[in-house]
Each structure stands twice: as C-alpha cells, then as structure tokens.
C-alpha cells in the first residue's frame, strides 16, 4: 500500500537577492519514510530542506515562491505562523549545536519554549527522547552535567533527541553525520532508521552509500533544479538522467 504524502512541494523557487538557489522544484514526500536529498555542493538541496520549516526566512533578501504543503496546507500562506511550522518540523544540523546548559536542559529546550513546566512531563519526555537516540544508558547518571562534555557523536544524538522531544511530525537532517567517525555515524543511522516508523524524514547527505542504504526514495539536485527523484533502488540501479548517472559514478561532485 502506498503511503500518503506528508509534504508536497510545488514549483518552489528560492532566491537569495539576485541568485536563484532553487528553480521551480516539485517533489512529493511520503509519510513515515526516509527521503535522501543528494547532489553536488551548492545544488540547492540544503535550501530545499530549509524551505520545509521556513528557516530560509531568517536569511536576509531571501524570497520564496511556490507552495510547500504540509498535510495539504500551504505553509507559506500568510496566515500560517512560521513558529508553528517549526514546532511540527524538527531539524538537525551538520555540526552539533548543543546549548551551553546541561544535557537535560538541552533535551527539554523545545518543551520549555512551549511553556511546559511540569517536572514529571519534562523528565518523562527527556527519558523517552534519550532512549530513542540510544543515549539514555550513556548519560542517565549525568543528566545535569554540561552537554559540552559529550563526544561529537553523542552531542549530535543529543541534538536529535532535542528535536524529538517535542514529537515533530517531520525531521529534517542537514548532513548530520558528515563530521562524525564511522562508528558514531552508524549509531545515528540506526537511530534514524527506528525513527522512520513514526516520523517523516528528509535527509541531506553527501554520502552516496548512506543515501543508498538508508533511504526509501532519493531526489537528485543539480544547479538549483531537481534532476530526478524516485525509489532509491531505481535511482541507483537505473537512473534516467545522464547527470544523475555521472554523479553516482563520481564524475563530479
């Protein structure tokens, strides 16, 4: 049975001043699946990712045209509050961005933003999020310790836990493993694979191997355009477009 579409992007164009970062891109993303965005640097995949939670708006001179529908509702409609969108669409960045507070405070940051004060609720949410990211057993005895004391891989999983604690419907990943060693990377991949059963995941990655082994579908971007998208197996085994073939073979990128 085909999953319904969680995110529908229709002729999305993004401009930074005069530079066109994304040129009329349309892509449908099924619910509770992993979609990998691949392509050479500067191809627009990160811009695409940041259009899904309206993070592009934080950049000056950024203009967005077209539609991004979340559960059928255009998130760029004037009456939609970007803050509400970001509460539903979580994001993890390339480099870990732990706040200079304790592990516990990092995880519950999003809940506190929403005004949650109950100690029990916060502690339960913290444990749940840390268990989902396989961090619980490693940090349960030092939840009050500074988050900066964790290793790079742990910090990145903490950032995922922080995003998960508010139960997002969509999780955007902007190369979350590119700064990590293979062991830390494989732990994060396990965590993400588990998450795909409850959350729609859109994943920007530079690693073809990662895209191949992790994703359900792949979208290949080049020069601000979506070249092709489809089931991961199909794209990797029989790409329709020559650019895709060249990129997968490592001719450029």
């Amino acid at each position, binding site marked *: 049975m085909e999953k319904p579409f969680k995110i529908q992007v229709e002729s999305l164009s993004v401009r930074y001043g005069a530079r066109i970062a994304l040129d009329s891109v349309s892509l449908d993303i099924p619910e509770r699946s992993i979609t990998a965005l691949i392509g050479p640097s500067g191809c627009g995949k990160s811009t695409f990712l940041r259009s899904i*939670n309206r*993070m592009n708006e*934080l950049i000056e001179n950024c203009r967005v045209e077209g539609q991004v529908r979340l559960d059928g509702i255009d998130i760029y409609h004037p009456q939609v509050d970007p*803050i*509400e969108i*970001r*509460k539903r669409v*979580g*994001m993890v*960045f390339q*480099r*870990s*961005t*732990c*706040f*200079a*507070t304790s592990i516990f405070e990092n995880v519950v*940051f*999003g809940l*506190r*933003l*929403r005004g949650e004060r109950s100690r029990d609720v916060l502690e339960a949410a913290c444990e749940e999020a840390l268990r989902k990211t396989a961090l619980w057993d490693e940090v349960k005895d030092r939840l009050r310790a500074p*988050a*900066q004391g964790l290793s790079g891989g742990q*910090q990145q999983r903490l*950032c995922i836990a*922080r*995003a998960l604690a*508010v139960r997002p419907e969509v999780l955007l990943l902007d190369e979350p493993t590119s700064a990590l060693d293979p062991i830390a990377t494989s732990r994060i991949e396990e965590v993400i694979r588990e998450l795909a059963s409850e959350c729609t995941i859109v994943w920007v990655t530079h690693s073809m191997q990662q895209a191949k082994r992790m994703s359900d579908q792949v979208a290949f971007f080049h020069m601000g355009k979506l070249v092709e998208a489809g089931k991961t197996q199909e794209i990797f085994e029989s790409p329709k477009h020559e650019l895709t073939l060249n990129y997968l073979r490592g001719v450029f990128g």
Partner: protein
Amino acid sequence: MKGLRHRLLAALVQIGPTGILGALSTLLLIAMLGGIIAILFLQGFPALSINFIFGRSSLEPSEGGIFNALVGTALLTLLMTAAALPLGVATGIYFAEYAKPQSKLTKILRVAIESLAGIPSVVYGLFGLGFFVLFVGKSLDALLSEPPLVVWAKPGILWSSLTLAVLTLPVVIVSTEEAIRRVSQELRQAAYALGATRLQVLLWVVLPGARAGIGTGAVLAIGRAAGEVAPILFTGAANHVAELPRHPTDMHMHLAYHVYALATQSADVESAKKLIFATSLVLVTITMLLTGIGSLLRAKNKQPENHGKAI
C-alpha cells in the same frame, strides 16, 4: 667570558632589531608598572592602619582617616553601575540584534558612541554640571517645591554617579555588542528550528551565551571609572564631608579626590605626603582588583571552545 658574550650577540642578531625593540619596550612597561607599585607600596604601606582606613574624615586632610572617601567611592561606583549597566546592555543588544547595519540612524549612533569614548573625562564633568545639576536639578526643584528651593540643583552623589555612568556607557555598549556577536549563528538557528521566537532566542540562547563577555566588559569599565576624578569634580565630590551620604543629593568624598585634597589643601605637608601614598595605594588596589577580575574573566572567555559551545 668571551663565549658568553658571543652567544648573547648571536641571540640578539637572531631576534633582530624589531625583536630587540619589542623586548626593550616590554621591559620598560613592566619596569614602569613595577616602579609605580613599588613606590606606592614603600611610601604608603607604613601609613596604613585600621585607624587610617576606618577613621572618619577630618577638616584637616592630613588628620583623620579615609573611611568617608572609601564609602563614597563604593557608593558612587555602585550607583554608577546600576545606571550604566542596564542602559549599556540594552543599547548593546539593540545594536547587535535589532539595528539595521546599513541604516543612516545606526551609522550616526555608532559614530556618536565612538566619539563619546574619545572625549576627555573633564568634559564629562562639565557636561554633568551643565546637564544633570543645572538643567535636570533645577527643573526638579521647580517642579517639586513652590517657591523653588535648591535641593536637587547642586552637586550630589546622584549627579556624580550619573555623570560617571555616561562616561562608562560606550565601553559597556561596545563590549555587550561584541559578546552578543560572538554567540554563533548556528546556535541561534538551532533554537529557531525548535520553534523559538526572536525574543526567546535572545533571552534563552544569546544572552546566556554572551553573559560572560558582557560581565567582563562591565567589570573592566567599572574598574576604570572607579578611579576617575574629573567627572565627579563639579558634580558631587567634595574635599571634606563629615557625614556619609544618606540621600541622593548629599555630596560625598572619593579616594582619588581625597588624594588631590591631601596634596593641595593640607597644612602639614610632611604628614600629608605619607597619607597621599597610602590613599593612592588603597585606590590602586581597588581598581587593580577590579581590572584583575575583568582580565581573569576575559581569559576564561577566550579559552578555545569546542564547537557547539555557546560561550
């Protein structure tokens, strides 16, 4: 002997003329600092005593202690901090977070702040006299009493601390702005991505991350202001005030001003001399303590940060 001289010469050639000049000027600076402290200590320390520090001021500067001046300095510095810190930090936040860098207003404000930092401190004193004492004070008197009595329109600790606050403001503003700019964009983005509003990002991420930097700047600015005389000369300080200040309009004594009083107003030059050094020693100790705390904070701040750390 010859070998030693040879090696010394070789070392000098190796570091080159710039290196030699640099080493000499460093030595000179250290010697000057050491000289100042040594003279203060040698001349002033023997005159230090419980009676000197906790003794009340006397009409003849060379008799009596410095307690009034000590309390005056402390109160002045506290009041000044209470005025300068909130305003300076708020302005710094405005510049770092809200002002459009390209706008004319921002540019004009920036030039104004930079010029403010370059004005000689005695001019601040005149400004304080003209603005706070004569303008604000007179207006208050006209408003509060009928017929007007002179209550606010005379030098007092409120006016001197406000004048000193104006002098400190540029430093607090600039250091706040810099500390805020040092908080990484990525951390802010992470907070936005969790659904934080702009104000929440500022209060929950940016300010906690910049806290240490702001504190450092504030302590350094306060340390410098604590030793200034010129701004308080016409606005609140006096040679001798028998009572400790109890009201914002009371005049007060000040350590640095007391040094000046000892040097110029004393009948007994010989006994005043020791006290000048002793008072200076106390003043320098206080300002150096403040500066030392500031420098320590700054050094702690600048420790190499691993990525993802807010401060």
